[in-house]
């Protein structure tokens, strides 16, 4: 799980162009949206693309997406459970 979390942090930084942030600065339990990393709605769409392209997981339900993209840890747990 730790490896997947590290991989996700690196992919999120690359996919969302978070150039000022290092993987170690992202707490896996820190909220990705709102007060956490401060991501916006376009970033949410990019995360959906990332899940589909890199993990072959489609997220089409908005309510489910909100839960999956809460934190890096919830993303990793969802990938593990669905791949």
């Amino acid at each position, binding site marked *: 799980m730790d490896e997947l979390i590290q991989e996700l942090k690196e992919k999120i930084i690359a996919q969302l*162009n*978070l*150039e*000022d942030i290092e993987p170690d600065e992202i707490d896996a339990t820190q909220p990705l949206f709102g007060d956490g990393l401060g991501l916006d709605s*376009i970033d949410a769409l*990019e995360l959906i693309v990332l899940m589909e*392209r890199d993990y072959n997981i489609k997220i089409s339900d908005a309510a489910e997406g909100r839960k999956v993209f809460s934190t890096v840890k919830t993303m990793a747990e969802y990938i593990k459970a669905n791949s």
Partner: protein
Amino acid sequence: MEIINYCSIQKGEIANANGIIYSFEDSKLNSFLKSYYKQKKILYPKFYKMDAQCKLAFIASEVLFENFNREDYNDEEIAMVFSNSESTLATDMEYWESAQSIASPALFVYTLPNIMMGEIAIRNKIKGENLFFIAEDFDSDLLLQQTELVFLYSPAKVAVVGWVNYENEEKYQARLFLVSKTGDGKLFNKMNIEKLNKE
């Protein structure tokens, strides 16, 4: 109409109304603008998410607004009149390539040229009139005429006016004017626009 400030960005150099204020040995746009962003210690993480043309418009606006008393104007009193020839062609192509597999939403939002004004508006809380024109070349008559109309028919008291055009990492140009509706300093007229364009 009076020119309050001016910014030109091209060939690895940034100039304002007083002359060149920054130059970088690598004239490739992304590395050049990133170096200016870091040197000025601008803190706006969204900068990194912008496409090259928006970065160009954004940095030009930062230079224009550097000594501007933003608090003297309501949000609706600042307008924007922009023009270019490429629209968003470079990003359109990039988006088209991404769409061959899974289209990128982050690229898609940069496939309309008025996104440049949107980014500047978000950064500076501007809610005034905004207009964007696609023209073959920098057209001072068009910009003058449209700026006059904006001042005549909207609450705007100042306007960001000019040209932001990106073809590729080596060929790009921003020429923005910060123009006041009133004032008798350096007039915003064809002669002064073209004179600054040649400098």
